[in-house]
């Protein structure tokens, strides 16, 4: 059965209150009557029941959420990065309290706002029975009654001083396209903002600035031309080997040499060839071709000098390690690699 909405406008609070009393006597329940006004009248002024107020409660929940956020931001980060600063404890309490206070307040107030929206079912974009004069100081009484009572209610309103009357048949609920669009826009904006922030934060969208000091003069030469060593000059470490020639004085494969080789291998080689030398390292997936398995027969069949040359000059995807391993150290590594044979 169709319901009818009737809106009457009043000038003043007293006749409004009177009218509402009459309507109640007529049997119109309180929840079917809505009073609209340009200023906040107290329910008592209009003889209305006090509306339910849950915003404060929601704020309290917000405060709790704020507390949890604050705890995560402070203790979470402190424990995630246990970095010492200024002799302070890793989880300092006083600074934490400051953050907790702010996040609790933030949670409280945001929750109050969203509580307000939620409790008022805001936003509303579909057309509602309303009169613009309400914001001019008039008080509107909106009664939702069965069609049969409509005329009677209308006359009651009129008799009690309602100077404008509007009547509308309640229509069944429709999906509110504008509301959907609104929330879609809000959600889209939030997602976009978050996405852009993360894209920048993860350097996917690179801002062209000397950003991380990774591309810079002091290491740029590593990609640049390698300058030749001075001819005939002799370094303090002793005469270096001439490119292309095997070493004349290999280091004997003593236990010390193998031990040194093991350390050097773990520093210089294991990154690619894996700690076990089998070509399985966390990095190996990054390379085409994959780093070779040093324990394999083809590698172990190479002569020492050949391995020495590979270390000195590089081969295929492997860079030369002459800058990383001294001549004697290369022999230590070779001696160690020999122990890896299957």
């Amino acid at each position, binding site marked *: 059965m169709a319901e009818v909405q009737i809106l009457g406008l009043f000038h003043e609070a007293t006749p409004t209150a009177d009218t509402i009393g009459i309507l109640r006597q007529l049997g119109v329940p309180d929840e079917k009557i809505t009073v609209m006004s340009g200023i906040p009248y107290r329910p008592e002024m209009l003889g209305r029941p006090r509306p339910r107020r849950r915003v404060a409660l929601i704020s309290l929940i917000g405060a709790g959420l704020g507390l949890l956020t604050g705890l995560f931001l402070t203790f979470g980060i402190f424990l995630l*990065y246990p*970095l*010492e*600063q*200024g*002799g*302070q404890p890793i989880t300092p309490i006083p600074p934490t309290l400051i953050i907790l206070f702010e996040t609790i307040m933030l949670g409280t107030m945001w929750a109050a706002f969203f509580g307000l929206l939620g409790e008022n079912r805001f936003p509303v974009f579909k057309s509602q029975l309303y009169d613009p004069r309400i914001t001019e100081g008039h008080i509107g009484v909106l009664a939702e009654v069965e069609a049969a009572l409509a005329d009677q209610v209308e006359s009651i309103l009129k008799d009690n001083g309602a100077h404008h009357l509007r009547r509308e048949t309640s229509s069944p609920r429709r999906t509110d396209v504008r509301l959907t669009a609104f929330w879609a826009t809000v959600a889209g904006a939030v997602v976009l903002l978050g996405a852009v922030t993360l894209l920048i934060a993860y350097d996917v969208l690179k801002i062209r600035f*000397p950003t*991380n*000091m*990774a591309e*810079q*003069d*002091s*290491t*740029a*030469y*590593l990609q640049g031309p390698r300058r030749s060593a001075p001819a005939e000059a002799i370094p303090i470490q002793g005469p270096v080997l001439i490119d292309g020639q095997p070493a004349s004085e290999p280091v004997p494969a003593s236990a010390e040499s193998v*031990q*040194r080789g093991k*350390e*050097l291998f*773990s*520093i210089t080689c294991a990154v690619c060839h894996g700690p076990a030398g089998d070509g399985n390292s966390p990095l190996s997936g990054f390379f085409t071709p994959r780093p070779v398995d040093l324990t394999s027969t083809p590698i172990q069949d190479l002569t020492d000098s050949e391995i020495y040359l590979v270390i000195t000059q590089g081969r295929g995807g492997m860079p030369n390690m002459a800058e990383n391993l001294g001549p004697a*150290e290369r022999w230590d590594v070779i001696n160690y690699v020999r122990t890896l044979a299957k």
Partner: protein
Amino acid sequence: MPELPERKWTMVVNLDTCTGCNACVVACHAENNVPIVSEEEVVRGRAMHWIRIERYWEGEWPDVKARYIPVMCQQCERAPCEPVCPVYATLHSQRENLNLQVYNRCVGTRYCQNNDPYKVRFFNFFDPNFEGLLKEQLNPDVTVRSAGVMEKCTFCVQRIRRSEEQALVADRPLRDGEVVPACVQACPTSALVFGDLKDPESEATRLVRGNQRKFRLLEELGAEPQVYYLQSGHSAVNE
């Protein structure tokens, strides 16, 4: 992997033998890629020297005395500059007892400089300018700091690391005197001594322990600086 032992790296500065020769200053520039700023910028108070020799005049003519105090980052144990950094760009390394500065984390709030009682932090107001071939001299172990980044003495942490790795490879403990920052390496009069206070036999420990001449700068602030100074001594000459 063997655990590296905890260290307490310390610099001892013997004011009796510091001659203000600037060898440490240039050594530091060379080792740490510290830019040289132009005359105009020096006038505007933006000179950058991680180690500087403060010269104080004492007395009036003709009884004037000049005092030299080399001042570098004091590597405080409770460094006031650290906790104010919002991005962990400056922090304390527990193991080495160093006050680290991670340049690529720095956003340049310059808060650390305000909170640094020794004013030994330097800010890159402009990008460093290494003209032409001068780029070739840059030490690849050390980042060249871009504009907007705070920098400071690190006790040549890259040299410490290098020595540690060498010792590790050779499977022996680090020897006293093996780790030398560039300034200590250069100092002709050996006024600068570097060492591990945790090592009871080190030269630094020997100089600091029970030495009546030792003091630390602004000790009353409680920052526990790790640079010890030795006051000038007196000769046994009757004046």
